[in-house]
């Protein structure tokens, strides 16, 4: 039986012909992402800015205008209403999300406010059900955003140290810059598309960090192996060879992960769609960055070529017998 081969054996793509250009493009993308973040900002969920969200379900079609009027009459400040569409919903399932800002000088969430909103909405759609109600006070949301940044920072820091110990500092720097690239681009996409940014997205960001790293480490592991094997070949050639050798695995793993993620994206329901979207995006940028950011930086910084230094005699012997 012929097996499926996505990547032919013995490819020899030249990934580093325009490596400076690729680094430039990556840098430019980061700049774009940060500009978008600066101009539009993230669409923070209540986890990070406090407030209340109510998810409603009704057999009647959602009339966003009528909902807005009903809630506007309560004068609760900034509120948004959006209809939710999902292929997994039944025909009688019309879902909307209502978000109300955190009320001034209220740490605790007032049950009366929620009850008032619910009563107002019941006036519009008598059969309406409130399938979830979530409130986060400003004190907690402030802390959540801090711990979220702390988590991403700590994860990147821990990885830096681990790779430094296992490889060399150039590898660690390359891997970490690739991670920063991935995280910043993801934030850029979230600010541009305006998908709700909440605690679950932080989990997705950290998974992207994990995935991208997984990919980078596999490439680096092969680079290290080839550096020992081919002591005299230029670094560029060794990097190219390593990436070509691992290309088949890179594509296979990306594809299986994407298959799983796309299934979740299409069928997993709207509650986790943003989360899954972040991860799909992460698989793409993570795979890209292992080659065009992490390895390109390695090429830029250069690496120690002599991996057997501690034992000079053995090195001389090996050089004499192998090559």
């Amino acid at each position, binding site marked *: 039986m012929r097996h499926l081969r996505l990547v032919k054996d013995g490819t020899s793509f030249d990934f580093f012909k325009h490596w400076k250009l690729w680094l430039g493009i990556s840098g430019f993308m980061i700049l774009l992402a940060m500009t978008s973040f600066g101009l539009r900002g993230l669409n923070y969920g209540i986890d990070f800015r406090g407030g209340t969200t109510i998810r409603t379900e009704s057999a009647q079609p959602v009339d966003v205008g009528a909902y807005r009027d009903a809630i506007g009459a309560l004068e609760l400040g900034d509120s948004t209403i959006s209809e939710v569409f999902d292929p997994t919903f039944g025909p009688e399932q019309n879902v909307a999300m209502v978000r109300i800002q955190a009320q001034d000088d209220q740490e605790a969430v007032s049950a009366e406010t929620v009850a008032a909103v619910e009563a107002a909405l019941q006036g519009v759609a008598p059969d309406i059900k409130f399938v979830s109600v979530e409130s986060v006070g400003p004190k907690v949301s402030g802390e959540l955003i801090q711990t979220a940044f702390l988590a991403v920072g700590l994860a990147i820091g821990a990885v830096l140290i681990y790779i430094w110990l296992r490889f060399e500092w150039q590898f660690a720097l390359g891997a970490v810059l690739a991670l920063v690239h991935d995280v910043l681009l993801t934030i850029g996409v979230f600010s541009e598309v305006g998908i709700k940014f909440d605690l679950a997205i932080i989990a997705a960001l950290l*998974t992207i960090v994990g995935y991208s790293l997984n990919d980078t480490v596999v490439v680096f592991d092969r680079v290290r192996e080839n550096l020992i094997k081919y002591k005299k070949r230029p670094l560029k050639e060794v990097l190219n060879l390593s990436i070509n050798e691992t290309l088949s695995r890179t594509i296979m793993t990306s594809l299986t*992960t994407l298959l799983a993620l796309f299934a*979740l994206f299409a069928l*997993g329901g709207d509650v986790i769609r943003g989360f899954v979207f972040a991860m799909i995006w992460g698989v793409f940028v993570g795979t890209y960055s292992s080659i065009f950011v992490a390895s390109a930086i390695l090429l830029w910084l250069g690496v120690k070529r002599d991996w057997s230094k501690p034992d000079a005699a053995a090195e001389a012997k090996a050089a004499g017998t192998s090559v």
Partner: protein
Amino acid sequence: MLQIETWKRVLIWALVAAGLVLAAPNLFYSRVETHNDAVSAIEKSGATPEREAAAAQWPSWLPSDLVNLGLDLRGGAHLLAEVKVADVYTSRMEALWPDVRDILRDARDEVGTVRLQPSEPGTLRVRISNPEGMARALELVRGLAQPVVSLTGAGATDLQVAGEGSDIVVTFSEAEKQATDERTMRQSLEIIRRRIDEVGTREPTIQRQGADRILIQVPGIGSAAELKDIIGTTAQLTFQPVVSRTTNPNESAGVGNEILPSLTEEGVYYVLEQAPVVTGEELVDAQPSFDQNGRPAVNFRFNPAGARKFGDYTAENIGSPFAIVLDDEVISAPVIQSHIPGGSGIITGNFSVEESTNLAVLLRAGALPAGLEFLEERTIGPELGQDSIEAGKLATGVAFTAVLVFMFLSYGLFGIFANIALILNIALIMGILSMIGATLTLPGIAGIVLTVGMAVDANVLIFERIREELKSARGPARAIELGYEKALSAIVDANITTFITAVILYAIGSGPVRGFAITLGLGIVTSVFTAIWVTRLLLVMWFERRRPRTLEI
């Protein structure tokens, strides 16, 4: 060459079998759940034929631990409460005033007269009319201090006493504040736990978070508001003498009196003496019942000290009204008909049966030592949870099938080995989750799906490596061996780094994020085990049987 020692084979299969057995109950979720509920009901309140029948639905010699479903899957309520620990300082300072007054009054010749000054919460400010006696006054008040009862605060005393002009200012020392906070938190946790247990819901989570917060998650409850009603009511019950009845809420109550609204009659207020005759702390029991007219009521009984006070008071005040006050509202203000010596009584009001039951629960559990402020509350309806479970099942099924087909197409027989390992991997994750009693959340399901995608990575690394080694024209056995050997460092490094992020997520995250971190972290461990050991064992067993000359991979 390709060898795995017998004891390793036995160990690998034993681990896999253990995982499968532990995971099995989850396939029969509702049946096992019924069994578990029946078993705990029998333990708690004896066997009935129905319970026996329910318990027999699942054989008791099989493991019956299930994966807990998180709130987002089962529906329920989540609350994060902050305990206002400083409340306790204030009430304890108020209680200290009579002692200070008495001890200074005895030394009236030296310090002059003593007057309580308005003071900020948690401090006691007392003015003496003869400032020359300050040194003596401070000495006397300091004599009231007690050693702090705690490990860290050993050697310190509980009060800090300072003189400011003619004022004596008493505050609690830092050591005492810490010890008090600790006690307040423990008491609050215990009371919240008892109140929730009284209502009898399944698997509530009541955890302390940080210095002064409590996380409460109760699956299956209708709403966070309902949960707040159960735990949030402080249920401060007092019996206070009634001075008068009025309809003017702004009437001046007079020194030592307070004015409180009636719970049942709109616009009616009572002027009461502030010092209670008896408080709820002296209650030993409270049960829902009915009064002589068949209306819902609550029966209560005092401890001996409370019973004596109550008996004395009723004996001396026959014919005058006294008020039953719950959380600063007058439930009822009956007139004392006769001396009540036994220390038991009945509270009537316009209760429904449910209200009287709840009130009895609240009274029995005791009062919370300090107020609660709710920082976060979430209600997830059971329908949404059910939708999420359905969607999660479908998505996992499709993802799983797609990956299995893809692996088979790419690697043929080897792909089948990897697929068997993948299926075992999921079983192992579910088995371990059940064993440690972890909670599966929606992001947790996403973590499993991601594991499905990534678990094949280790096998892909190995298979690709075997392909490469085959090209160097070594024999198949050698190629397999080298493939495993050389892929190992990449597998280990890649998985350790991902594991690091999972650990950080677990340590820092909360709720659903934590659920995701658990399945991701577990998935890494089990996938490395199945990829490295299980597929290898399958491969070796196949190889020993067939002894192929060439490998199709």
